[in-house]
């Protein structure tokens, strides 16, 4: 500190008051010490920042938004695919049901037609059997007439 005072004394010859000279020397030393301390601290912080590998800070909001939008998109696509598949299955089942119904109707109609044919044939048979005379009938009558003579 004495060196500082000597330096001030040499640098500023207008100072004749030793008390003032000492005060100015102390003040100068104090400001230099303060400034150096702040500068060293700033440089240490700066070098620490520079040596730390810079990684992009995780943008949580953006990441979350991306994840949510992806999940929503995936859900929407899956839902649409499932709905489409479900509709196809339902349509297929409906078609099967209609096909079966038509087939059943056709079978029923065929059955009815067959029954009607059988009845008609039976009726015709019975009618024919009743109306047509026996092939030997005239001859039998003639024989009866001869035995009476």
């Amino acid at each position: 500190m004495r060196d500082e005072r000597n330096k001030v004394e040499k640098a500023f010859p207008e100072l004749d008051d030793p008390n003032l000279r000492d005060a100015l020397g102390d003040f100068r030393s104090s400001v230099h010490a303060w400034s150096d301390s702040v500068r060293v601290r700033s440089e240490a912080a700066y070098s620490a920042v520079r040596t730390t590998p810079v990684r992009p800070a995780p943008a949580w909001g953006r990441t979350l938004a991306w994840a949510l939008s992806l999940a929503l998109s995936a859900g929407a696509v899956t839902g649409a695919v499932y709905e489409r598949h479900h509709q196809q299955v339902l349509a297929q089942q409906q078609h099967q049901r209609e096909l079966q119904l038509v087939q059943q109707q056709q079978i029923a109609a065929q059955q009815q037609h067959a029954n009607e044919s059988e009845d008609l044939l039976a009726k015709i048979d019975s009618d024919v059997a009743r109306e047509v005379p026996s092939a030997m009938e005239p001859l039998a009558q003639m024989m009866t007439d001869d035995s009476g003579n």
Partner: protein
Amino acid sequence: MTMQTATRLAGSELAEADFSEVVATHRPQIFRFLLASTRDVDLAETLTQDCFLKAHRNWAGFRAESSVLTWLMRIAINLQKDHWRNRRLQFWRTTRTNAVDVSEASDWLPSGESSPEQQLLARERVSGVWRALEKLSGRQKSIFLLRYVEEMDIAEIAKATGLSDGTVKAHLSRALSRVREQLGGKA
């Protein structure tokens, strides 16, 4: 690439290299002056950055009519003036500053071989100078700091402040009287 372009590029690279050297050499002094003027570490750092930014922009126009330090000090003094002028105009804003008080600023003493009693006396003297500086005008304070902290001579201070040598001496005399008065001596 033409010879002219190459020469211009080489010249600009040289100028950049020169300016980097100027920053490395004079940054501590500029920062110290601004720190002592404002007693605000953040403000001093900001103004120092602004000072070198402005100097970089005008580096090509520097004619070396004064030393680089004097030129930089002039920029720093003007920036500081602009800052306080803007603060006065923005009176509706909060007036809170980060400036440390006198006692905190006086805590900084180099750890020498002196005894605790001498350290205490030194702290009181430093505190007295800070208190005296609070009573000085901005211009007087700048001149005082340039003379007794940065050890610039009268002619350099005159160039840095844009004043005549006589005016600088008059301001210094008044500032010293105020400091002596604060320290308990005769004004």
